């Protein structure tokens, strides 16, 4: 079991460009979560899916961020017109039972996004 796989590990974009981040959850896991990690804010919840359906996107900046889960083996986080304040480590996590309370989240290694 390779764990949660995130690609790319590092991404550098210019201001105004688009960035797409990829996540492959652990096989058989029903829920996928996206978090953003910064020194100031810590781990901020962005959005999550259960059995590919969007459940809660309350943490997503509405204007430029979107997430999809087209099949059970991958999810994408897309940031349009990237801004320097979007620079962060974006972490994906999966859980086995669909995001029920008290489940362990299994995190990937993250994608470090740098917007110049």
């Amino acid at each position: 079991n390779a764990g949660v796989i995130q690609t790319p590990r590092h991404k550098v974009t210019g201001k105004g460009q688009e960035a797409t981040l990829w996540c492959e959850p652990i096989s058989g896991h029903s829920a996928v979560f996206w978090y953003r990690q910064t020194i100031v804010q810590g781990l901020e919840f962005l959005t999550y899916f259960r059995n590919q359906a969007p459940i809660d996107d309350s943490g997503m900046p509405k204007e430029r961020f979107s997430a999809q889960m087209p099949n059970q083996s991958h999810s994408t986080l897309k940031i349009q017109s990237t801004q320097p304040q979007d620079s962060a480590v974006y972490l994906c996590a999966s859980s086995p039972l669909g995001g029920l309370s008290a489940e362990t989240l299994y995190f990937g290694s993250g994608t470090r996004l740098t917007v110049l």
Partner: protein
Amino acid sequence: GDSVTQKEGLVTLTEGLPVMLNCTYQTIYSNAFLFWYVHYLNESPRLLLKSSTDNKRTEHQGFHATLHKSSSSFHLQKSSAQLSDSALYYCALSEGYNQGKLIFGQGTKLSIKP
């Protein structure tokens, strides 16, 4: 809304001394779960321990924490720090049943010196 507060951004200790990382939370849910996740450099964050039972001590890998609902606290402790404990520690809250989303605190960086 629900929130988790970790007041210390950085804790620096000498090896062998006791560790205590503070975590307080706010929630309207009586059946909330509290978690500690640890993030070592160049690794992925992973679960250290969790609890939902009031006043019960939970232990794992030498660390322990007790959920105190009366004071909304879930402090992480260890009797003797080791160099290998240096990492970023996050306290997190799950709001209740059928709510998989975790609300994390800002994190505390623990640095252990020889």
